[in-house]
């Protein structure tokens, strides 16, 4: 049995404490960076962290920031994000971040402290039912009651987080378990009879899909976050270019296919482009890859189902297939593997499809594109938020890591920053968590030292995790915060204008801080920009500063709305366009 060791005792067989085992497991998994916040239940783990330097710890200022930072770290690289929080309030503070990662299927391991095993269930100090509270918002969780199970549990946690459809996995470790000792052996593999995700797509189904795609007269390729998560942008680009078909991305899939490519129709969905939504509705063969037919994308399901189309759906999660929209050819498997197999089958078949019909389809699409649905008033004397994003794109040459908070600014960033590469666009799509942007930018910066990282945000969102400005100072993170400040909760105000008779209930941001003074208070540089002609110079100046965080406060047009917009409950072709208002 593992009892606490007396200091100075010598043993023939080396035994490690639970805390040492946690750190050794992280080292074995190649974890370089852990985001966390100490507390009573994790003190022994922090002690062991202190004694080594293979795993680096980043101290945040709120556990929500730790979870978002680990999340952003993972999204901007292909590594697992790891965060470490204490029991009770540490866990509950992190829940928002965990749920954010869960909704977007991000591989993350959360290590949480827990009160000692003998105190569980007795309403101890800083106790909460961590496993119970996080159960609905993690892929899986564990409570380690015996130190001898700890290493295997950590191995399982990393395995579950990174295989199949990725997701956050939480390991809850009681404080006494971190002091108990046992022999340490990190398992090379872990087999679970109850967990064996399908990786290879069924070859028969793939063959059917290839056949159907070649018969298409009005084909459409619809891709989402699954392409990013499985690093499939190269085979995707090959497939789309071989076929010459139009391609669209969801919010989570931006960067999966190069946005500057002529075959890219822009993002689709509630705030997608006119041409992408029209093509999605009127296609006759739809190839859905790593996307889940979310309600933001298909609008009114009845309206979507009115057009006869055949749907091929490639996804690693069988429960995503035919969940909202019935599909004709489901293919369960890892997106990259399935695409590579499809490419093999398409080899030598380029130009075999109905080229005449395809040409006519493209003519129709170009007619839709000609509507120029993203245009805005460029003659305005007030700064237009779209203009700021366009300039941001130019100044960073489209190569920055761009994180975002939630709201109008997020939609404009998605529409106007053209992402040619995956893992550059980092935002909370599924849960839509305000406060995500700044800590995620920290994570992205740690994952890519020296890279340019921009956080596009609004004055409402940035205040939710503002305390992380201190973390940025401590670790000298030269993030550039692009604050589109319209003194309103923009997206809420837009809905209130369109659907609630301009009754702006609680969407005005009163008592805003002086953001420049605030940034300076945290030791950073702040810049207020009020005129359109100052936008580009301010951006150029900020991004030239490679070792400073710069908070750019852009005072933008309060009346600007995001177009196109598919109102809730309407079909995706029933978009409101800018010209109509």
């Amino acid at each position, binding site marked *: 049995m593992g009892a606490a060791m007396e200091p100075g005792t010598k043993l023939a067989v080396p035994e490690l404490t639970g805390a040492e085992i946690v750190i050794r497991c992280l080292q074995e998994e190649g974890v370089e960076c852990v985001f966390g916040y100490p507390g009573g239940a994790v003190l022994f783990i922090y002690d062991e962290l202190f004694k080594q330097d293979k795993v680096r710890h980043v101290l945040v200022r709120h556990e929500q920031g730790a979870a978002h930072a680990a999340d952003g770290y993972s999204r901007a690289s292909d590594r697992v994000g790891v965060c470490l929080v204490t029991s009770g309030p540490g866990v509950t503070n992190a829940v928002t971040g965990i749920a954010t990662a869960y909704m977007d299927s991000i591989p993350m391991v959360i290590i949480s402290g827990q009160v000692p095993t003998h105190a569980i269930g007795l309403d101890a100090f800083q106790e909460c039912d961590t496993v119970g509270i996080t159960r609905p918002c993690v892929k899986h969780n564990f*409570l380690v009651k015996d130190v001898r199970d700890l290493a295997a549990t950590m191995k399982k946690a990393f395995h579950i987080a990174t295989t199949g459809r990725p997701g956050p996995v939480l390991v809850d470790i009681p404080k006494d378990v971190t002091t108990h000792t046992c022999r340490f052996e990190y398992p090379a593999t872990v087999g679970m*009879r*109850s*967990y064996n995700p399908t990786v290879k797509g069924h070859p028969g189904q793939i063959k059917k899909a290839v056949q159907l795609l070649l018969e298409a007269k009005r084909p459409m390729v619809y891709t989402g976050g699954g392409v990013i998560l499985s690093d499939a942008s190269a085979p995707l680009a090959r497939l789309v270019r071989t076929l010459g078909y139009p391609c669209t991305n969801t919010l989570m899939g931006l960067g999966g296919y190069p946005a500057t490519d002529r075959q890219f129709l822009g993002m689709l969905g509630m705030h997608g482009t006119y041409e992408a939504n029209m093509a999605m509705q009127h296609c006759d063969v739809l190839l859905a890859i790593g996307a889940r037919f979310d309600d933001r994308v298909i609008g009114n399901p009845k309206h979507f189902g009115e057009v006869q189309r055949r749907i091929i759906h490639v996804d690693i999660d*069988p429960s995503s297939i*035919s969940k909202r929209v019935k599909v004709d050819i489901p293919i369960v498997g890892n997106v990259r593997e399935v695409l590579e197999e499809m490419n093999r089958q398409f080899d030598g078949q380029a130009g075999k499809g109905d080229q005449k019909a395809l040409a006519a389809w493209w003519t129709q699409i170009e007619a839709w594109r000609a509507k120029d649905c993203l245009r805005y008033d460029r003659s305005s004397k007030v700064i237009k938020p779209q203009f700021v994003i366009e300039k941001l794109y130019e100044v960073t040459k489209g190569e920055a890591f761009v994180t975002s908070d939630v709201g109008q600014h997020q939609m404009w960033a998605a529409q106007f920053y053209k992402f040619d590469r995956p893992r550059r666009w980092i935002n909370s799509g599924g849960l839509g968590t305000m406060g995500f942007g700044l800590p995620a930018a920290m994570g992205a910066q740690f994952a890519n030292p020296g890279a340019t990282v921009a956080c596009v945000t609004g004055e409402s969102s940035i205040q939710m995790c503002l305390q992380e400005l201190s973390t940025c100072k401590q670790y000298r993170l030269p993030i550039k915060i692009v604050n589109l400040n319209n003194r309103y909760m923009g997206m809420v105000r837009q809905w209130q204008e369109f659907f609630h008779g301009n009754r702006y209930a609680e969407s005005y941001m009163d008592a805003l801080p002086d953001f420049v003074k605030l940034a300076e208070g945290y030791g950073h540089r702040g810049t207020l920009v009020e005129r359109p002609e100052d936008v580009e110079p301010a951006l150029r100046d900020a991004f030239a500063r490679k070792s400073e965080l710069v908070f750019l406060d852009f005072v933008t047009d309060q009346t600007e709305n995001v177009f196109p917009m598919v109102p809730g409950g309407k079909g995706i072709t029933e978009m409101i366009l800018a010209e109509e208002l």
Partner: protein
Amino acid sequence: MNAPTSPPGASPYALPAAPAGAMRHIISILLENESGALSRVAGLFSARGYNIESLTVAPTEDASLSRMTIVTVGSDDVIEQITKQLNKLIEVVKVVDLSEAPHIERELMLIKVRATGKDREEMKRMADIFRGRILDVTETTYTIELTGTGSKLDAFLEALDKTAILETVRTGASGIARGERVLRA
């Protein structure tokens, strides 16, 4: 946006009436016998708004595995989603919808009834007719054990005089496939 809502005044826990095409399914699940596994399944059903008519679970001959039987009502689409979501759970080893093929369903009920005076003879006859067994006897009560399909147990309750029923406790249905099909890890 278009979520179904209960009629005003209805209990917030009342589920909306089952849509047309909803059928009763009996789903058998093999899962790792680990603490929290039951909570995960129950949590899944409640979080996604699936209906649980009854749920029963116990270890199998392999102590590391539990077998759970859930009776649920839903359309084919809903049952398909339920099955897929259950398979997603890490501890779930296998899921089978027994309703898809010939199967045997059994449930146990213990029922305490008032049996006084001339009713005692009648109550014993009822128990015999339904092949129940009387496990406990007092001057005023019988406690009867009854096994069978859910509808047989329902029929027994219908057949009795309502005022005679003092207390009932049911286990919920368990099921097993007919023939050579087995549910194993």
